[in-house]
């Protein structure tokens, strides 16, 4: 973090520093666009494999250029704005959705040598660089802010369309975001507790010491539960199946983007898949040590970091596609039940347990006792919650009987 601050203070707006900055922006922009193109192809290919089909195979080798062809087609289609639409907001919404998706990636460390306690910086062109666009001290909060902002695009798109199904989709989007952002934030808090920092670089560094290279990763260190909660909440945040109620075709035509066509529609599409890529990258950073992995050569450790990072992200991309091919869509009340009655209490309980363990470390208490008491507390809390839910349900049923006979 100190190196980053020094870098910011010594930043010279008239020198090569600016060129570097622009080059980084262009590089990330290009890589993200290409990754989206490949992601769409990857998803279609894997889903078709899981359904015993061939999938896209005409454009380019193995149909790899299919997304490009689709994009060009969309580009030449007519751009319609419905009569009932709020024209300004209608046109603004796709960008509101897309730009946060880009910005989110800025804090992800994509490469670097983190083995043996190194901090992942490289010396290129006489400068000490981190292989991420920025490493602000508030780090991962930027991710939370951007994923919250991205929902505005979806919400406003539905609202500004002046049509009922998009409106329903956007109402669902905002309700879903409110429900799952809490669980997402609570599982993130567990990560902050162990790394002691919000900076993504620091978070990666804090995961590097452990047995067998992978022992220090947060997914193990925090006991799986925060990771599982994060994965589920992230899937909901991304509006991906099985949580894609926002654009449930069978119920809402196309959901929030029903009225969009041409390039504006493709912007939503782009944002959606870019969010998938970014969310996978964030998940790798938070729970799987980012670019951390064994470095097998003496020099060029950063490239190994890039390789490990890429492989880890690929696993999560596959997981998201796997979810889509396997799980049917949740009903709306199931979605809310899962978010409010399971994920949030569990995330909260686990966060308190981790906090208690941290206190036990400082105070010198017996760990086993703390874990036993903590788990018992979570269990009792769960029982209480279940009882309260059942009681509420019974009361509601009784009042309905009284009311309607």
């Amino acid at each position, binding site marked *: 973090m100190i190196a980053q601050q020094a870098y910011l203070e010594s930043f010279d707006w008239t020198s090569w520093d600016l060129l570097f900055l622009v080059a980084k922006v262009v590089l990330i922009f290009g890589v993200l666009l290409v990754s989206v193109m490949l992601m769409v192809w990857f998803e279609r290919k*894997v889903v078709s*494999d*899981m*359904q*015993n*089909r*061939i999938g896209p*195979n*005409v454009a380019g080798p193995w149909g790899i250029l299919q997304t490009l062809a689709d994009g060009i087609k969309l580009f030449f289609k007519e751009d319609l704005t419905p009569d009932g639409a709020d024209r300004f907001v209608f046109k603004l919404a796709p960008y509101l959705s897309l730009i946060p998706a880009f910005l989110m990636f800025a804090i992800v460390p994509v490469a670097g040598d983190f083995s043996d306690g190194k901090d992942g910086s490289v010396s290129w062109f006489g400068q000490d660089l981190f292989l991420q666009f920025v490493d602000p001290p508030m780090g991962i909060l930027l991710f939370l802010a951007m994923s919250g902002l991205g929902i505005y695009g979806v919400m406003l798109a539905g609202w500004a369309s002046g049509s009922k199904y998009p409106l329903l989709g956007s109402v669902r989007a905002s309700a879903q975001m409110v429900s799952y952002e809490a669980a997402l934030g609570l599982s993130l808090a567990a990560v902050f507790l162990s790394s002691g920092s919000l900076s993504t670089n620091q978070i990666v560094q804090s995961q590097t010491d452990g047995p067998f290279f992978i022992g220090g990763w947060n997914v193990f260190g925090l006991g799986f539960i925060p990771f599982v909660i994060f994965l589920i909440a992230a899937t909901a945040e991304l509006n991906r199946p099985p949580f894609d109620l926002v654009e449930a075709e069978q119920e809402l035509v196309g959901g929030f983007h029903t009225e969009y066509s041409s390039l504006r529609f493709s912007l939503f599409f782009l944002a959606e898949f870019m969010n998938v890529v970014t969310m996978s990258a964030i998940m790798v950073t938070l729970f799987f040590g980012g670019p951390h992995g064994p470095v097998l050569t003496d020099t060029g450790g950063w490239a190994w970091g890039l390789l490990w990072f890429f492989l880890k992200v690929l696993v999560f991309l596959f997981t998201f596609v*796997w979810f889509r*091919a*396997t*799980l049917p869509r949740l009903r709306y009340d199931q979605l809310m039940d899962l978010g409010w009655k399971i994920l949030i209490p569990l995330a909260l309980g686990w966060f308190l347990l981790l906090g208690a363990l941290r206190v036990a470390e400082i105070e010198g208490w017996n760990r086993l006792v703390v874990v036993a008491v903590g788990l018992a507390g979570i269990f009792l809390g769960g029982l209480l919650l279940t009882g309260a839910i059942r009681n509420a349900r019974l009361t509601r049923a009784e009042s309905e009987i009284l009311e309607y006979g």
Partner: protein
Amino acid sequence: MGYLEGFAVTFNKLFEERVTGEYKAKGEGEKRDKPERFHGRHVLNRYEDGMEKCIGCELCAGVCPARCIYVRGADNPPDNPVSPGERFGWIYEINYLRCIHCDLCVEACPTQAITESKLFEFSFTNRDDAIYTKDELVVGDDGMPQKLPWEDWRPGDDEHTSGWMRATSPGGSVAYQNTVSWSGELGYGVRSPEMGQHEPDPEPVPAGGHGDTHDDHSDHHDDSGHGGH
């Protein structure tokens, strides 16, 4: 753990054989054979002597659920008749932007004038091409459907255009198996019935022949049950 079993199912599918094949566009190679009674683009048939079968009765237009057929009949000119009988199909148009290939027109036709080929890939590029006129629908002098420039004909698509008609027992009655109840066609003559739809009736078992059959058919077919299927 029902959820996780589902993940195993989809994952194992990754390594299974594909059930779909490559799409072969025009000029890229063979396609898999189409079913015998495939519903494709229509043809208007002619008798063996070259006369048109259509009598302009408009039953096809009447039965069409998509309202895609437009027919107008006219009296045959006495000196140069188009069809045997009083009337003929003067205008005959099918709008393929509407047609759903349900084959009801084929069932309705009293003279087997309209049947369907197996062609389904005819991607016209304007609305005029979408409306097939009688000149385009009627079979040529060799009895084959006309092949228009935008149509992707494959071997076999133009044969057995009367697939549904040739079903030997359209009512499901075995008694009509192998019974020809349709007229001849230009270039083909009287087409043979489509075989192999019903198990042939078991032949009367000769006396004393029971001992030869060692299969586990405990109930032999009743010979008197012709119409009972």
